[in-house]
């Protein structure tokens, strides 16, 4: 085993992961085609599957580009990238720069492309965190370093929260946490941080679910209602009139619609599924067309390909994630290891939250499923993230 490791004939890239990613891309195009069948009124190059394929190509190119430069050189630019990302996150909140869609300021309209800065901020954050934490272990024991690491996490977190995009913001937390943990920050710091955060979240939930309206923390209305849906809370207040109650019921129906329909899609797929493009939930519009191809693409796959399809998707992600962990283990230094760990945690969080949301394990948040959901920013970032993993793998022996 040792000999093989050192032999020069070992492949320079990890083909297993590349195959898995390729498989995911094929599935992605196939089911975006199913969720968004070609329409006659749109030019062929504007059809969803075609656009997605173009993003795949661009993403693959970006990943290859990333691999051309040693991650050490890349990491030197991490400070620039981080602050660029922060600037973009601020810019998106400005009225004439950001684009307002679906109730949030998440995009910058570049004409051909709706840039979603939060996606790139995640990558920049991984870089800066890895760069910051790859210092001697003694320094990591200092509380100030730990506080600075937390600060690096909180800044983009708050900005993304302001958009509002709770899901994307929340994803930063496990990424930051796991990276500090793997870097070797004393666990007592982490324990304190996690328990404090836990108490805070518990208080927040109690407040949202049970406190009288005047006492409730100012949360976006839709966020509160999504949590209500998740916890099955009655929308109508206790002392409401029949008309109010009816309105609340309608609201409840509207708000829980996506979750309910996604669950019906996934469940009705059964073991074998109904077959590609045979899903009724899309054909009949029960699964809303505006989310079917992006946030809820998994329920399309699950309905049409059943439990088998779900297992296939999970397996492909497992290959990617565990290859990433292995690459982290094989990295030649802490920077490489932390980059790999950050990327793995990011991808895993997306997969877990998105699929969990489809089967009601998690509340609804606008988190895309890496490589499968339609969307340029998400695809680009996922492929760049995969490129980072390959980069760490490629340059593992360059002492």
């Amino acid at each position, binding site marked *: 085993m040792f000999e093989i490791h050192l032999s020069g004939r070992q492949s320079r890239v990890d083909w297993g992961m590349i195959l898995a990613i390729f498989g995911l891309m094929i599935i992605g195009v196939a089911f975006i085609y199913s969720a968004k069948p070609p329409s006659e009124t749109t030019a062929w190059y504007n059809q969803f599957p075609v656009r997605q394929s173009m993003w795949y190509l661009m993403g693959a190119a970006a990943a290859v580009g990333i691999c051309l430069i040693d991650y050490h050189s890349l990491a030197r630019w991490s400070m620039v990238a981080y602050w660029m990302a922060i600037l973009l996150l601020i810019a998106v909140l400005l009225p004439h720069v950001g684009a307002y869609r679906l109730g949030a300021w998440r995009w910058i309209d570049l004409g051909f492309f709706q840039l979603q800065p939060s996606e790139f901020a995640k990558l920049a954050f991984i870089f800066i965190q890895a760069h910051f934490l790859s210092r001697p272990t003694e320094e990591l024991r200092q509380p100030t370093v730990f506080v600075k690491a937390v600060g690096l996490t909180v800044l983009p977190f708050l900005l993304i929260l302001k958009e509002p995009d709770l899901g994307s913001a929340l994803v930063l937390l496990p990424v930051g946490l796991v990276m500090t943990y793997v870097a070797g920050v004393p666990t007592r710091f982490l324990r304190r941080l996690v328990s404090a955060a836990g108490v805070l979240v518990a208080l927040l939930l109690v407040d949202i679910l049970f406190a009288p309206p005047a006492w409730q923390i100012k949360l976006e209305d839709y966020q509160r209602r999504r949590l209500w849906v998740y916890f099955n809370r009655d929308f109508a207040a206790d002392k409401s009139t029949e008309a109010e109650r009816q309105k609340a019921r309608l609201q409840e129906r509207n708000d829980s619609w996506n979750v309910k329909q996604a669950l019906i899609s996934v469940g*009705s797929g059964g073991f074998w599924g109904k077959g590609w493009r045979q899903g009724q939930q899309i054909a009949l519009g029960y699964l809303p067309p505006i989310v079917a191809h992006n946030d809820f693409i998994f329920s399309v796959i699950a309905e049409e390909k059943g439990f088998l399809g779900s297992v296939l998707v999970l397996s492909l992600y497992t290959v990617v994630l565990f290859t990433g962990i*292995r690459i982290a283990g094989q990295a030649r230094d802490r920077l490489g*290891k932390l980059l790999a760990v950050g990327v793995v945690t990011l991808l895993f969080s997306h*997969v877990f939250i998105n699929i969990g949301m489809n*089967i009601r394990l998690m509340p609804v948040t606008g988190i895309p499923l890496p490589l499968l959901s339609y969307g340029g920013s998400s695809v680009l970032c996922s492929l760049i993230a995969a490129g980072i993993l390959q980069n760490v793998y490629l340059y593992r022996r360059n002492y």
Partner: protein
Amino acid sequence: MLIFDQLRKNDRQLQVLAISVLSGLGLLLLGLWYVQVLSAKRYQTSQINQSFRTVRIPAIRGKIFDANGVALAENRPCYNVNLYLDELRPYFRSAYSNNLSWVMRQLTRTNSKARLTHNQRIELGKLTRYQVVSNLVYRVSSLLHQPVPLQDTKFLEHYDQRLFIPMPVLTNLNPTQIALFAEQSADLPGFDLEVQPVRVYPHHAAAGHLLGHLQRDDSAADEDVFFNYRMPDFRGVVGIEGAFDEQLRGRNGVKSVLVDSLGYRQSENVWAPAEAGQSVYLTIDIAIQQAAEKALHSAPVPYAGPVRGAVVVMDPRNGDLIAMASNPAYDPNDFAVRLTQERAEAAKLDDPILRPQINRAMQENYAPGSIFKIVVGLAGLEAGTLDPNEVYHSPGFYVIARGHKPIDDLAGPGDFNFRRALVKSSNSYFIHEGLKLGVDRIAEMGKRFHFGERTGILPRQEAPGILPTREWREKNLGGAWFDGNTANLSIGQEIDVTPLQVAVMISAVANGGTVYWPRLVARTEPQDPFSADQAVKFPAGRVHGELGISKNSLNAVRGAMLADVEDAEGTGTRAFVPGMRICAKTGTAQIQQGRKTIGHTTWIASFAPFDNARYVVVVMIEDGTSGGATSAPVAQQVYLALQKRESQPKPTKPESLVKN
């Protein structure tokens, strides 16, 4: 595991990460297993529930035929114009975007940043759809030259609740409109012509009471399946339509409509086709029925307005009903669509005196008057208390006991033997004989004819009549039976019968003593010859009982009845038809209110021919002058029609050809 082997043994952090990721993925796998494998059925069901609507399709109702295969009740196609809203979706969309841009232009004129709220957009959508539909409906209405009202509330209700079925726009098109629509509706999107069967009674009021009528029925009482929508269906309420509703109705079918999330129809699938109902074949001859109705209609009654009465024509050899008329009648067609208030008033359906909904031939009790003397006479002859040749001298009235009011006798004073007493209908003679017999023996003879019992011809539409006995009087009127009561019974008062019961009685007298169950329905037969349903035959000549009366007694009565028509002094001479040898007994029963006579129920109960009876004709007319004057001419008309039918060659009845 492959990856764990490759991790350095002392790299605890990565191991923790690997285990966390693995358990996270494992959790997802378990969740997916639970949702997609363990709960798959549940979600599949809820998917079906939310995307399928079931529609109940009524079956085509069976027809009703007379004895010769003439249709008395059938179905005619009714053409309706329906609008399929799902086909209008492109029009909704383009109209909406036009409206929206117009609204935005208006709004931005004053405020460039104005936007529509979500609810305003929904409202605009609603208005747009109504606008599109009402424009289209207006075009159809001008095409068909008929104003079509389209209420916005009705439209919205349909849109909200029944989007999966087409919206009815115009019903019951006339032939011109059908032609216009077929020619020119090509450029009208979404409209379609629908054919629905509508019950039609080609002979209108003829046999209306027997046929009964339908009523709109949208109840789900008989079904255990839930339907999202029930297409209009009808239920028979009275008459044959009511009694044979189950057979006539057939079995409904089920259609499922696949709908999208907005409720628009996507596709349809008939799960179970409707099975047409069975046809019912009656024993009635519509020609005789119509003759009887016509005769009844023109009866010489001493009052203005429609004649109130009934005619029963029966075959005494087996109890088959040939005709059963009741006047005033109603046209069952009036009920077929939906009885409007005006039509109900025009038909005087609720008039308390005319009561056209009552079938007077079987649904109403009448005192038989003198025709009951046949029963009293037979009882006396059988008991031996009556000697047909013994002569009784009548003073022209009858006094039961000293101080009692004398009972009138229109036969006048004179000497009467049995024959003359029956021909002249002498009250005194029969009171004399009745008192000799006593009530028990008269009632016993009445029981043999099954008076006081329903004949069971149609359920819930028959009066049983009253055959009084001592016990009955004690129980119901709370008094003892006096001779006065016997005297009244002897001349057919204090007893209630229906014309149908009288027809059964006369049949028994005519056929030599067999009391038949009257028969109205000969058989039911599936419309579809390949149906799994079997034809059901109702055998003719079901015997209810035998009179057990000697030939001599019957002959004495029959002879007297013949003389009633053929002797000059008979009361039934106006029923005479040359060559028919009609035997009859007339009756004029007094209807009393307190001590005052307020009217007469006038009867004739007859059969013919004398020696080989084939017909029994019973006529009852309310408030007539007398049986002989009012009812006998009606019977004569009926016999003339029967005679005419005999002289005509019987239609060689290829029933299978006549059927459809």
